[in-house]
């Protein structure tokens, strides 16, 4: 997304630091709304062009043309393209993504039931990436050239090349099969038992987040080493500040932006990875639903899943943008 900026805060002279409140509003208007409109239009266009007479499929081989026409009319498929699009968009904006062609169940409801599973995996993965990535990257940068640094660099390089699904399978083999610490699959909703929920979400979530953690660690190590050699660190030293204060109060904050952006940009990948993790761990998530929908040409289901994904990615972009602009005041200049 275009609103994610990594520019160094040198630009701009004389201008005052903009008030924080104005920026999210502008970003929303200039970035998110057009992207949302264009991407949802593309979703509709593609599914429109690809749909192969679902009424005939549903009614089977013996359906009369009249019955098919009747069903197409019920579904509104006999209307013009733009009429269908506007009606679909209007409903989508109110949270109504229509009903499945084949099961007649509400798509919004089905997504509402399944999405929390993928969101939980993604959030656990993000937390893993941030906690492990920042810890490893910081230690490696501070103890640059030491044993910890070399181990972190090596492990990170290896992790980045390993696909998440292989990690997930290895994690199951180690923690479920061999050690028996965690369940190898299945799902317990959070509201039923948070503790059991955590046990079920931990393996898929953490194994999903390890690759991003490695990326974050490498990114942060590099930018933190650069930051620690910056003159402003010398400036902080001659002000008599302690190494800890210089690291956490100054260098780390400034070096964090690229790493935070790395996490932000990884959200779509993590969502995709969550779909794969679902099938490894046998979770009833969005991926299974989307796969079934795609195999049966269930257009409302496909559209609904894509729209929900777009929404999540856009929301995460807005959050990352807000975080970055807090980390670097100069990026607040739109």
């Amino acid at each position: 997304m275009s609103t994610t900026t990594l520019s160094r805060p040198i630009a701009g002279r004389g201008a005052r630091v903009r008030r924080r409140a104005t920026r999210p509003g502008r970003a929303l208007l200039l970035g998110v709304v057009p992207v949302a409109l264009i991407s949802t239009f593309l979703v509709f266009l593609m599914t429109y062009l690809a749909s192969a007479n679902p009424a005939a499929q549903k009614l089977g081989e013996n359906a009369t043309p009249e019955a098919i026409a009747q069903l197409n009319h019920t579904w509104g498929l006999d209307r013009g393209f733009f009429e269908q699009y506007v009606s679909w968009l209007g409903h989508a904006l109110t949270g109504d993504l229509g009903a499945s062609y084949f099961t007649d169940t509400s798509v919004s409801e089905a997504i509402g039931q399944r999405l929390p599973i993928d969101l939980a995996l993604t959030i656990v993965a993000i937390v893993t990436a941030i906690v492990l990535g920042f810890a490893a990257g910081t230690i490696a940068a501070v103890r640059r050239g030491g044993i910890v640094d070399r181990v972190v660099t090596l492990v990170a390089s290896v992790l980045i090349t390993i696909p998440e699904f292989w990690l997930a399978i290895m994690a199951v083999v180690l923690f479920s099969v061999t050690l028996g610490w965690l369940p190898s699959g299945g799902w317990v909703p959070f509201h039923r038992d948070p503790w059991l929920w955590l046990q079920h979400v931990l393996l898929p979530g953490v194994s999903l987040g390890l690759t991003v953690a490695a990326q974050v660690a490498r990114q942060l190590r590099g930018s933190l080493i650069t930051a620690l050699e910056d003159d402003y660190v010398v400036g902080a030293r001659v002000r008599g500040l302690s190494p800890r204060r210089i690291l956490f109060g100054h260098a780390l904050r400034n070096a964090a932006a690229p790493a935070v952006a790395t996490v932000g940009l990884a959200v779509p990948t993590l969502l995709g990875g969550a779909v794969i993790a679902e099938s490894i761990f046998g979770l009833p998530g969005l991926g299974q639903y989307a796969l079934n929908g795609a195999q049966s040409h269930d257009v409302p289901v496909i559209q609904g899943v894509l729209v929900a994904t777009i929404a999540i990615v856009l929301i995460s972009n807005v959050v990352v943008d807000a975080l970055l602009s807090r980390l670097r005041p100069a990026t607040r200049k739109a």
Partner: protein
Amino acid sequence: MSADLATRPETAPVATGAPLLEVRGLRVAVPGADGPVDAVHGVDLRVGRGEALGLVGESGSGKTLTCRAVLGVLPGRCTVAGGTIDLDGTDLATLSPRAWRDVHAVRIGAVFQDPASYLNPAQTVGRQLAEVLRVKTGLGRRAARARALELFATVGLKRPEVVFDRIAAHLSGGMQQRVMLAIAISCDPQLLIADEPTTALDVKTQAEIVRLLRELRERIGLAILFVSHDLAVVTELCDRIAVFRDGRIVEEAPTAELLAGRAEHPYTRSLLRAAGLETTTPEDDRVA
């Protein structure tokens, strides 16, 4: 210490008793192709209480390395290879990093050539000054802010409360240097190390900063170790001047002596002439 703002440096009182800073035989080694090589070869300096000593010389003459050594922040893999740096009884040459924290800001303040790069680019300047006050003088959040605004006013920043919320990049060069000065004097140090503080500024701002330094000196009795390649600026501020060349001090004399044409070393004369400050015309025009 005279409080008269009109007092010219050449009439400032001569420091008596033990000097505030005494550097003896300082050698600084820089990394070379075949191991460390000395870039500063045995420098001796004395700065009395409230006195201003100017270090002049061309780039690479060792004046900046000398003052970086005194400040304990030598760049890269440069090290103090020998000598003592005595600040009022403390040998800075052998100080541990932990002990340096009680010297920096508290006993020595510092300003540099490029003030913006020595400030955190992402934090408001007020916050950085308040941080020093809170850490070093134990002030509370609100008291630190109030003191910071006072200090900004002291260094001649108009509308301190506006400056407080700016980041360095949104201030002019002169304002940035004033902010650095406010931070440097925030914990009442006895010594200010000023490494080319006026070099990056335009002529008018340069004069303002020099005037401010002279004022601070007279008002709070600050001793100043002033580094510059611009002899004209140095003579404006300093009581004595040490001339650096190739890592050695070739001449050290009171400013008044040099201005009166009593420079002994030909190199000093050539510097004076280059700055348009020499009045007499000695026969040896050659640079040694």
